[in-house]
């Protein structure tokens, strides 16, 4: 009985994190972007600095009409938001936030699970792009696919470097093996991983697939109401997952600097929050990359860097063993 209770509690906690953190990041994005641009952002909803803005947005989305274009492939059009969102919920199950087994489920091949399931999420954007029966949507879907194919490889290679360093594929196992000097040792891999992850989430400066000045909103052009909100939620859940993963793989997760491990899960949250702030900052700062620049960055910069990181990891690993 206690086993069932334990599992239910863990899944419940993961679900709460999944519902709360993306909204927190969304609200932070509103406020941070506003202040970086010399504005105030939402100020009225909820009273204190517009904290309830996203709740109000949610109510608005729920009231809107759910339109399916006449020429669209109805079932796939309606299924796509779920395919885009659910993988991120599944991924959160495998990410450890603290010591002593504070993880939804300790998976033996955790890294592979996380990267594999994140890749499935992109299928949602492809389905949406195709099923909308809209040229802009199809172009958005094409760009999404091209981007995923280019950036999946460096992401995998960078993650493989950490797995080599730790000698395990399990995420809690990697954190147990973590030493502080891994941060400078794996820093190149970490940068590659984070950049490739941004591209996989289609965040600026890699938001070619949803470039609003060219193809309206890419694959999501025809969506309204709740289904559109689900796609947006998937983007923010993706930011949570990417930042948490980067902090677990490359920044030591719940390990604190100078041996201050006592705070545990607070360190994970803090590192995730700092990385998420970086994601928002990049959106405000950088212009959008063109499609050819995007591909060139992946194939001629990120992949060689990731391979060099793997070589470095292998050499150091052999030398110290």
């Amino acid at each position, binding site marked *: 009985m206690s086993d069932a209770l334990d599992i239910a509690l863990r899944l419940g906690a993961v679900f709460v994190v999944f519902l709360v953190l993306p909204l927190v990041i969304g609200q932070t994005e509103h406020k941070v972007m506003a202040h970086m641009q010399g504005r105030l952002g939402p100020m009225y909803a909820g009273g204190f600095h517009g904290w309830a803005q996203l709740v109000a947005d949610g109510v608005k989305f729920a009231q809107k009409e759910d339109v399916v274009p006449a*020429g*669209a*492939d109805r079932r*796939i059009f309606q299924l796509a938001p779920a395919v885009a969102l659910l993988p991120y919920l599944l991924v959160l199950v495998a990410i450890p936030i603290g010591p002593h087994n504070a993880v939804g489920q300790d*998976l*033996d*091949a955790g890294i*592979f*699970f996380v*990267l*594999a*399931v994140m*890749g*499935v999420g*992109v*299928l949602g954007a*492809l*389905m949406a*792009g*195709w*099923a909308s*029966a809209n040229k802009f949507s*199809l172009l958005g*879907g*094409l760009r999404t*696919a*091209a981007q*995923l*194919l*280019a950036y*999946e490889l460096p992401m*995998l290679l960078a993650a493989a470097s950490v797995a080599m360093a730790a000698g*395990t*594929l399990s995420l809690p196992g990697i954190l147990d093996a973590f030493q502080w000097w891994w941060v400078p040792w794996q820093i190149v891999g970490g940068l590659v991983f984070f950049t490739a992850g941004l591209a996989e989430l289609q965040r600026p400066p890699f938001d070619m697939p949803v470039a609003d000045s060219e193809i309206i909103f890419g694959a999501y052009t025809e969506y309204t109401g709740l289904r559109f909100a689900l796609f947006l939620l998937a983007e923010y859940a993706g930011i949570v997952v990417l930042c948490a993963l980067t902090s677990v793989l490359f920044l030591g997760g719940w390990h604190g600097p100078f041996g201050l491990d006592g705070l545990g899960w607070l360190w994970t949250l803090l590192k995730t929050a700092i990385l998420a702030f970086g994601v928002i900052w990049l959106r405000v700062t950088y212009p959008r990359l063109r499609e050819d620049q995007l*591909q060139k960055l*992946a*194939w001629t910069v990120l992949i060689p860097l990731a391979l060099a990181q793997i070589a470095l990891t292998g050499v150091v690993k052999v030398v110290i063993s």
Partner: protein
Amino acid sequence: MTLAAASHGFLSPTGVEIAFLLVGIVTLGAAVVTVTTKQLVHSALWLVVALGGIAVEYLLLTAEFIAWVQVLIYVGSVVVLLLFGLMLTKAPIGRSPDADSGNRWAALVVAAGSAAALVWVVVDAFRATWIDLDGPVQGSTQESGRSLFQYWVLPFEALSVLLLAALVGAIVLSRKHGAAAAERGAVAPSTPTGPAAHAPGEDR
């Protein structure tokens, strides 16, 4: 065979066996729909269901690592490549009546033949082998890696050479198109991009 079956209860299957069978039926159904549907993109999406079903089967056989690699490579990359190719060339919404090549019966014979060969090999190799679900996990990353690089390293390397050959072949094929078009000059319109098999970014 009968002894092993009897000791594990041939007519009183466990929950895992029932789940295995049900997922197998779903996978088979999805695979049949994949090759019979008239809608091209639906076919690719049913392929996702079939490949995902196979991953679940691996999970039920305690081969966790293989299962996630299956999802990563096939669902995450191969199907995305397929959809990319479809969208780039021809992906109408609704039925495409010309999607049937007329080789239906030849394809059926080949499929039945390879299925029979595979079933024969698997049954012959694992006739009375049962996975001990209570013992140490046999399909863990560590075990898979150990057997792959201790006992099967030669086939593994041979396979990687085969893949390399396929990669070089794809590059050669896509290059040849470009050269032929350049020789014909401005007279002939440039040929469309090379075979769909080549990976993106290689044609630079």
